[in-house]
Structures are given as C-alpha cells and as structure tokens.
C-alpha cells in the first residue's frame, strides 16, 4: 500500500511538468499547424539558462526562473520571426524539415557552448524531503509541481479570458475568417510560438535543477510532449493537462508493477490503446473543416 501511495505521489509530481510540456506544444500545433521539433530544445534552453544565471552569475534562484522563462519566450519569438514567418503558406513537409534543421542546430549549439558534460544546478530548497506518513517527496519537486500548476492556470486564463486568447482561438478555428475579421495573424503566430516556447523553457528551468542539464535532454522531453499532445487531442489545453497526468501515472504504475525496463514503452502502449478507441485523442477541439 505504501508503495502504491508513493507511486501516486510521484505520478502527481511528474504529471505537472508533463502537462506543462504538452500544453506548449499543443498550442503551437493547434494554432499554427506547425509540428514544433524545437520544443525539446526550448526545454533544454530553459535548463541551461538556469545554469548560466544561478551557477555562473550568481543570480537568485527565483529571479533566474522568471528570467529563464522570459528568455525562452524571446527565443521562441525570434525563431518564429526568422524562420516560420517566411514559411507561412508553405506545405507542412517543408516546415517540418526546417524545424528539424532548427532542432539539430539548436542542440549542437548547446553542445558547443556548454559541452556534452552534464551540468548540475543548485536549488535553495532543504535537502530533507517532505514526509507524509509512509511516503516522501523532495521539496524541490513540490515547488516544481506548484509552479507548473500555476503556469497552467495562467495559460488557461490567457487563452479563455483575454482578447489575445480570443484572437488565438479564432485563428485556431478558421485562420482566413479570423484574418477577415481583423485579427493580425502574424502577431498571433509570434505570440503563440513565444508562449509555447516560454512554457517549454519553464519546464526545463524547473526540472533542470531537479535533474541535470545536458544537450540531448530535450529529446526525451519532446517525445513525451508529442505523446501527451496526441493523447489529449491536438490543440486542447485540458486534454494536454490530463494527458500529462495520465502519462505520468501509466509510467509510474507500469514501472512499479509490470516492468521498469519498459517504463517508456508503457506510456506509448497506452496511447495506442486510446487512439484505437478514440482516434482524435481524448479531448479533440472542434475546428471548421474546409
């Protein structure tokens, strides 16, 4: 029983960051129809910014976190402005190839700047874990969980309640009509890509200090993010949130009770199972066809 409770607690903590990763990716795909292969690199970028700020320049941990997220948004905006803006109207294959190129270029730049050796980042939380009965969890993970939920809440509010969010949703439903109604599609795309990138950078900045930062860290994160997005339904924020938690739970229980060697396979088996019965994912958003 204690082991089961510990698995549940672990899944909850992990699910928060998975959700954060998934939301950023689902937003970009839903609104821009771009398969964003750089998502994992933005995640790594967030972690490396924490390393640069906290370990190299001695910036306060919490200030560094805010800065890392802001820098992630800036890098995202720059990527959109330099690469994607020119590709609007290009077919999905061309865009995908460019994004794969950007992914490789970013990862190799990280390697060039930070070398291939993993970097660890100090955090200001007490080393002794939070103990609840028979289960325990590190304070750093509790912090990550709380901030992840907070960011998910802010994103949801932004999309549902603000004018920018309304324009984003309109673009998602029908790009041409939205443009005819006076929505600046270009700015919406930049804002969307910046927001999605900021969320990925936030996940990296939060998890970098929990794990370590290394150049290929984004690959696994991106694979998980894609899985979550497919699971939750393309373009759906509640879907990505729930998808994140379901994936984490599947991994924890699969590894705990079936086989840890197939931990990552569990999650993908689950996805196949769900897609067989609900091919659009759990919460696919309605969009106008045609």
């Amino acid at each position, binding site marked *: 029983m*204690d*082991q089961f409770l*510990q*698995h549940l607690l*672990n899944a909850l*903590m*992990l699910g928060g960051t998975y959700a954060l990763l998934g939301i950023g990716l689902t937003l970009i795909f839903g609104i821009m129809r771009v398969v964003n292969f750089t998502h994992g690199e933005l995640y790594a970028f967030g972690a490396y910014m924490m390393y640069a700020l906290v370990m190299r320049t001695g910036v306060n941990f919490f200030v560094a976190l805010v800065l890392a997220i802001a820098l992630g948004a800036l890098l995202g905006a720059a990527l959109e402005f330099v690469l994607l803006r020119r590709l609007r109207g290009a077919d999905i294959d061309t865009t995908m190839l460019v994004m794969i190129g950007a992914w490789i270029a970013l990862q190799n730049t990280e*390697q060039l700047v930070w*070398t*291939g*050796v*993993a970097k*660890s980042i100090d955090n200001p939380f007490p*080393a002794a*874990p939070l*103990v609840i009965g028979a289960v*325990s*969890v*590190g304070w750093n*993970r509790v912090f990550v969980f709380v901030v992840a939920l907070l960011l998910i809440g802010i994103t949801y509010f932004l999309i549902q309640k603000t004018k920018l969010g309304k324009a984003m949703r309109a673009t998602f439903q029908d790009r041409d009509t939205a443009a005819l109604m006076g929505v600046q599609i270009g700015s919406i795309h930049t804002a969307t890509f910046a927001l999605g990138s900021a969320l990925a950078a936030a996940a990296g900045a939060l998890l970098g200090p929990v*794990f*370590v930062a*290394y*150049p*290929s*860290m984004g*690959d*696994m994160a991106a694979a998980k993010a894609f899985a979550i997005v497919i699971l939750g339904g393309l373009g759906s924020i509640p879907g990505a949130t729930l998808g994140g938690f379901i994936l984490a739970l599947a*991994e*924890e*229980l*699969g*590894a*705990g009770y079936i*086989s*840890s*060697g197939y*931990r*990552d396979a569990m999650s993908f088996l689950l996805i196949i199972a769900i897609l067989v019965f609900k091919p659009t994912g759990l919460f696919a958003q309605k969009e106008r066809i045609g």
Partner: protein
Amino acid sequence: MNRTLAAIFVTAALASGPVLAQDAIKIGVTQPLTGAFAASGNYVTEGAKLAEAAINASGGVLGRKIQLIIEDNKSNPTEAVATAEKLISKDKVPVMLGAWSSSLTLAVMPKLMEYGVPMLVETSSSGKITVSGNPWIFRISPTSEMEAKAFAGYVKTLGIKKADFLATNNDFGLGASKEFAEMLKANGAQIGVVETMDPKATDFSAQLAKIKASGGDTLFVTTAVEQATLILKQAKEQQVTARIITTGGSVSPDQLIQQAGDAANGSRHVVFFTPWFPEAVKNPDVAKKFVAAWNAKGLPAGGLTEGFRGWDGLYTIVEGIKLAGKAEPAAIQKALWDVKVKGVNGDIAFIKQGPAGQESAQNVPSVYVVRIDGGKVVKN
C-alpha cells in the same frame, strides 16, 4: 606562369602527400563524446590525447609519430558502427581504441571481424565481449565477473544480507547485475528486486519506490556517472535507506561529491584507479606521470578515474605496434598478445578467453572499492 605555378603545386602535392601519410601512424578512437555517456567518453579521449602527446614527445614509435583520429559515436550503437566503418575504410587505421560502453563495443565487433582490425577495449565490462569468439578484441578493463569476484570479500565485512539492484537496461547493466547477484548468493546474501532503467532516463522515482518497498540493506547501482548522480539524489528524496554501491568503475566519486553533494555521503564505489591514495596503486611513477599531465592541462580531478583508461589503452596499443615492428592490423593483433605494459591501473598483459582457436584477449586489472564520507573519498 600559370603552368609553372601548377607544376609547383603538383610537385608539392606529390611530394607532401605520401610523406604525410607515411609520417604518422594513425590510431582510430571511437568514444561517446556526446549523448548519455558524454562525460566519461570525453575524459577517456582526453586521457588518450595526453598519452599521444607524451608518446610523441619521447620520439613516437618505430621512428614515426602517432596520430589519433577521434570519432564521436554519440553514445549510440548504430553511430558506433558508422565510426568504425569510417575509421577503417576511410582513414585506414591499423588499430582502434573504443568504444566505452558494452553495447557500443558489441555493436562495433562484427566490423573488426569483417575488416580484420584489432580494437583495444578500455572501459566495457560485459562478459559477452571476450567470450563471443572475436580474436580482434583486446580488453584492458575488468569484466563484471572480475569485479564481482573482487567484491566478494566485502559481503561479510559490510554485513550484506539482502541486496536490490538498479541497472541500466543494456549489456553493461544487465551483465553486472547478473554477476553480482550470483556472487552475493554464493556468499549467503539474499536477492531482492532487480530494477532496470533506460540509459537516457532521468527520473527513477518508480524504480526507487519499488526498491524501498523491497527493503534490502544494500542497493547495487550499475550505470554511468550522470544517472548515478540522479539516483543518489532521488534515493535521498524518497528516503531509501539502503547503502548504495556502484559498479563498473565509471562513477567518478569526485564528480558525485561535486554534483550530488550530501546525497553522495555513505555511498561506495568500485573503481579501477585511486588517485586519492597514490600509495595504493601498483605503478606509482606511471600514475604520477599521468596525473601530472592531466593537471597540467587543467582537466578536472573528477575525470581521472575515467581518463586513465584512455592513457593505459593508448600505451598498450603503441607497445603492440612497437613489438609488431610495423603498423599493420594483423601484425599488431599478433604482437598485442605479448605486451607487458606498466599502466596506471597496474601491469597490463593478456590472457585468453572464449572459444578455442578464436580467443579474445582479456587483461586482469586491479579493482578497488572506495567510500564517500563527509564529502571526501576514503578507503572503503
């Protein structure tokens, strides 16, 4: 004018080409410089580069200089095969050093058979490597079985009653878990759970929860230093109280102290070089020379336990070339059987392993166990 210039260039090219090719003896190196095992692969490569410089400074071998051709196998078996193919077919290296992890080495091995080129294996510990009947393999690192045997004496001293395992899901991790489990059983200890993890994984919460529930007094961890660091940290978060012992010799205690901090205290590590206790090594002057070269280049002390593998590996290869009298694969293969090298790890010489007629070469190296206590490395 143009014709004269062209003639000069052609003559120059003809004159310099063959001379350059003749000049240095090329030695291929395939190591994981990026990816999951990057830290270790880079240190091994640095060790080999220091040996290259030292050997060339003292006149090279057979009157020629040596030149390392270094390829990054990206911690990926498929890439490892590609690096071997490139080094052998394009660079025409007569001998190679590599490929760090057991899975990488095993992937490269069929290429050695195909082209008939010997490879000195400096790190891999899976038993499979030297028993598969590949006569081009010369391994200086200990097998998991040798490590387990060397550890047997500690089972009683440490009072190990029940042990759990957490190993990377590849030839290295699975092989070591099997050998250590057998050794422990033979010494009267009980085996709890054997958990595995993807070599790229960073979160081990599920495995650790299961290990905690199993309740062994000792947890054997077999992986590279990156994952070991995270396991120590996460075990502390989940209040896993078992003493943690790493195997494989690639978990640098200094790097753990630096990166895992408090969580590293109390852990024990199987290592093959003990720079903290220079008096404990077999060839102190060789070790001193290596450490001095390492420090002179400003490399981190945490890399010494890995870097020595590259140094010892290259010295062994060069000794083989010297005995062979020529830089040809078959001659080097034959000569390597007779080398006697004073290495950082101890005296290097090869014994036969594997099926008769197709034996691989295996060295019997020194194995030590050290402990981290109060942020310092101490003797067990």
